[in-house]
């Protein structure tokens, strides 16, 4: 296939999902620059492997490539891997907080505050974080998540359940923290 046609097809089938790809990379790496680098590298990988793309779902295939690229980068960065262990002290600082005393009104505002929710999800271990992002933000089916993360559908189900449990605990924990 001529390069021009291949590029056009790649844009239409794969790059059309660039927002999904960046979103997933940003949630896995938890860093703007790292996400950007991972997506660029992942797109080159996808471009090279484009002829071997299998299955009827280019988006799921592309997200799997992006995820693998992110994990390779995370693995290279040992410090980041260590940070995957949840640390209350560390992540307390990730939530938007200021020195002013916390009022009940603040709690109500914070509960709907996107930044605060982001920090709660960011604090989850990666294996739960990624399935929650794929399900709640990307609205993918269990079958698609299973293909992207390369785990059985039963594991998708149990990881989502466990991830949501953890997220609910974090939300309650943070609210109690604000109340004190």
């Amino acid at each position, binding site marked *: *296939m*001529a*390069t*021009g*046609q*291949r*590029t056009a097809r*790649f*844009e239409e089938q794969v*790059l059309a999902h*660039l*927002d999904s*790809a*960046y*979103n997933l990379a*940003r*949630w896995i790496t938890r860093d*703007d620059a790292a*996400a*950007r680098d991972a*997506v*660029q590298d992942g*797109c*080159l990988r996808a*471009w*090279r*492997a484009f*002829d*071997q793309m299998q299955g009827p779902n280019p988006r799921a295939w592309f997200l799997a490539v992006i995820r693998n690229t992110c994990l390779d980068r995370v693995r290279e960065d040992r410090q980041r891997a260590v940070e995957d262990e949840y640390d209350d002290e560390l992540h307390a600082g990730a939530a938007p907080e200021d020195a002013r005393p916390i009022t009940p009104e603040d709690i109500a505002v914070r*509960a*709907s*505050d*996107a930044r605060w*929710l*982001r920090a709660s*999800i960011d604090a989850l271990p990666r294996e739960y974080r990624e399935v929650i*992002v794929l*399900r*709640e*933000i990307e609205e993918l*089916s*269990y079958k698609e998540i299973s293909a992207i993360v390369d785990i059985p559908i039963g594991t998708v*189900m*149990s990881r*989502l*359940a466990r991830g*949501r449990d953890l*997220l*609910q605990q974090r*939300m309650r924990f943070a609210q109690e923290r604000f109340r004190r």
Partner: protein
Amino acid sequence: MNCTLALRVLDAWIDDELDATTAGEVAEHVAGCPACADLRDRRVAMRSALKAASLNHPAPAGLHASILRRIRNVAPAEPTRSAWQWWQMVALGGSTALLGALGGWWIAQPQATDGLPEQAVARHVASLMPEGPRIDVASTDRHVVRPWFQGRIDFAPVVRDLSAQGFDLVGARLDHLGGQVAVAVVYRLRNHAINVFSWRVLGNAAEASRPATIRGFNVVTWSESDINFAAVSDTDKAELDRFTAAYRRP
């Protein structure tokens, strides 16, 4: 259904991922179990909080364009000979009458189903012009040839000075093989052009130093650390083997 079982599939139920029978059993259980109903309510509340918060990180402006730029850098140069693109159109159009009329010429063109040696010979033939082999960077100095590929491909091509063995470096060009971008380094032995193609291994690795003779051309293919190689020439087999050995020397 009891609580243990219901809790195990509650999330899949909320996500509408259960078969109708199981979903009916869960619904029935939750309707009569305050504890499970409470968990469902909390899950639903959390989901609407997540939805309302718009947690999506959209791709930054300019990322799409910069990716396309990088792809164009690693992609093979657009074919300069219109016949190549024309062949693509014929292949896509699938005009059998035209195919019949062009049968002989068609066979001479590389096809995706062809083996790597066949494709290498086809690209070798395509590179031969009356005035000499087609090259993008003409130099007998490997320190000129090799850096030319920086930013154009994602591996460092092997370019050796083999003049002592009688093989003069002519230059190199970007080509494509096996559906991928490839480097072709061109040498000359007397009047014979030698193309050494190299490209990243994706899928089929070439077998260890496999010689073949195709349409009178000699081909040697091999793989080394994630790179496939194919050397093609109309010189005789012994000379090509000598060349390959020199080019591959550690």
